């Protein structure tokens, strides 16, 4: 399908593909086994300017937006979505700063982020607050000159590896979600430590850890926007970042489709390649159609985000929900038509199937997001009555 990408977007996509094939492909199986954080690949991505893609030009970025980010994430995920996660979450950890940070905050952090010198993370989830973000308990008590954080964040991607964390914490407990604020916390701040590293089903080369705050003091200037805006900023952030999860899902599905086509062309049963069997053709045809539909929706949502549209909740939720369901279905079907080989760990499909699952869960589970879409439908109807 022709998506009429600009020359620059095509360059970004093709360089990301080259990195994926030349640098990531040879190590993806090993990293999945060892669950080691892919520092060498992060360096390759930094050297290639990939972290500059989503940072504005004034801060040493290339001034791209959501679509450019999606193109990189898709290409990396086509080969290894664990590594794509380590990369993509830097956008999640930077968007709030980019959109709402002060000039000083941006000057202080963004050039290092753009150069890939410092990784970032975003932390809202807690043991008691998953889908129900409003149930967070971590506090940031106002004191002379700053805030003191106490509490535990859970399942934080790049936790322990990142240098810069955007943390959502309650600056005013009494006001509930209206008392939540977004605060920048740097690694090595006294009182800030990391809990256990999770052992996961998929995206195993990515690091997921607890963040633990024990009387952790951060200066006043680390607050992003105004106190009480934290919850709103988180919701706006996810509206902008969800097409990225969609792109991750599209990449995984595309990778699985290609592996399935290669294998079914070579595998001979009943005297002919599997791909000649109508049943297999039917499955492959459906897979390809789903992948392309998901890609079209993801790119369209990303372009809408980049247009500066005020409200993109529905569109970005749709892109994430649809693409992640496609990734799960396509990888499952790919394993199916590759049979026993598809199920083996030295063949890439089982990893893709394990990796696909997370895209239905994080940045808002698909159930929660369908819910959000329905709420928008209802609101819109109510407005026209």
């Amino acid at each position: 399908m022709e998506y009429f990408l600009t020359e620059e977007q095509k360059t970004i996509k093709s360089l990301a593909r080259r990195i994926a094939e030349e640098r990531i492909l040879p190590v993806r199986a090993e990293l999945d086994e060892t669950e080691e954080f892919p520092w060498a690949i992060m360096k390759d991505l930094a050297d290639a300017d990939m972290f500059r893609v989503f940072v504005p030009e004034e801060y040493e970025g290339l001034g791209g937006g959501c679509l450019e980010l999606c193109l990189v994430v898709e290409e990396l995920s086509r080969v290894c979505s664990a590594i794509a996660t380590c990369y993509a979450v830097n956008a999640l950890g930077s968007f709030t700063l980019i959109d709402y940070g002060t000039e000083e905050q941006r000057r202080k952090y963004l050039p290092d982020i753009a150069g890939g010198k410092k990784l970032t993370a975003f932390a809202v989830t807690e043991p008691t607050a998953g889908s129900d973000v409003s149930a967070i308990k971590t506090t940031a008590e106002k004191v002379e000159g700053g805030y003191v954080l106490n509490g535990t964040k859970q399942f934080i991607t790049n936790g322990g590896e990142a240098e810069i964390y955007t943390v959502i914490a309650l600056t005013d407990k009494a006001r509930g979600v209206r008392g939540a604020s977004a605060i920048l916390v740097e690694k090595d701040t006294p009182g800030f430590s990391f809990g256990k590293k999770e052992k996961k089903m998929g995206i195993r080369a990515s690091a997921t850890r607890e963040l633990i705050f024990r009387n952790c003091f951060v200066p006043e200037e680390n607050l992003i926007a105004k106190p009480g805006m934290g919850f709103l900023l988180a919701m706006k952030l996810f509206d902008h970042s969800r097409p990225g999860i969609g792109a991750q899902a599209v990449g995984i599905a595309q990778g699985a489709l290609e592996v399935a086509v290669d294998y079914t062309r070579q595998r001979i049963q009943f005297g002919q390649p599997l791909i000649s069997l109508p049943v297999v053709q039917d499955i492959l045809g459906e897979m390809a159609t789903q992948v392309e539909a998901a890609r079209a929706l993801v790119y369209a949502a990303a372009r809408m985000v980049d247009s500066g549209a005020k409200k993109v909740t529905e569109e970005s939720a749709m892109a994430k929900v649809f693409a992640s369901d496609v990734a799960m279905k396509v990888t499952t079907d790919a394993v199916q038509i590759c049979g026993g080989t598809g199920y083996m760990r030295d063949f890439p499909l089982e990893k893709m199937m394990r990796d696909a699952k997370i895209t239905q869960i994080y940045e808002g589970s698909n159930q929660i997001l369908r819910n959000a879409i329905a709420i928008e439908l209802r609101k819109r109807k109510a407005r026209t009555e």
Partner: protein
Amino acid sequence: MNVIVCLKQVPGTAQVKIDPETNTLIREGIENVINPFDTYALEEGVRLKERFGGKVTAMSMGPPQAEGALREAVSLGADEAILLSDKAFAGADTWATAYTLASAVNKLGQYDIIICGRQTLDGDTGQVGPELSEMLEVPFVAYVSRIEEIADGQMRVQRMVEEGHEVIEAPLPTVITVVKEINVPRLPSLRGIVKSKSAVIPVWTVPDLGVDQSRVGLAGSFTKVIKVFFPQRVCQGEIFQGELGNQVECLMGKLKDAGLV
């Protein structure tokens, strides 16, 4: 540190076909790339610049489309690039090529080190580097696998030889050729690609270099390619399959039949 990297554009695959009529490579429809061995030379040049400052100039003699290889060199870190291109340069052998490159180096003037790949993928001679040093009358070290130190106008390098490594010191300026063990070339960067698209790449011709027409290209070549061909395969290998025991049995049977054991 002023570094000159000499690189050549070659067909991007080792499976190019040869035109049986003209005995030349069929280049149509094949993507051209920087000669793989030269990518190590370029990377080493860029690393020297990163270590010691200065600049890297990429230089290539070739047809107008060789500009593509030079643009790629800029995307990989070369500061400047010069294309030596003139109809009169066509058909050059290694001697005429080295002469043309040497003339361009002299025109450029000051340099500390010239880095070439150990050989090209298409010509495979490995002669241009050493010939270039002869013409420039500067020292030469082949098959460099590590640049250990550069200080006080001297460089110390490791060079690969069959039995191991030799450590050699040479005064600058020096010409070296490098082997692939020396580094892992980087991929281009997005900013490098943007820069390479707008880079101005001057083209130097026979008048620009002020060289004698009779010493360049086919006219200046002492050697001539008479025929290029694939060696005939005289005997076929055989691969035994199945259980190891059976394979050994098959092998012994064949050897006995042939009267070898």
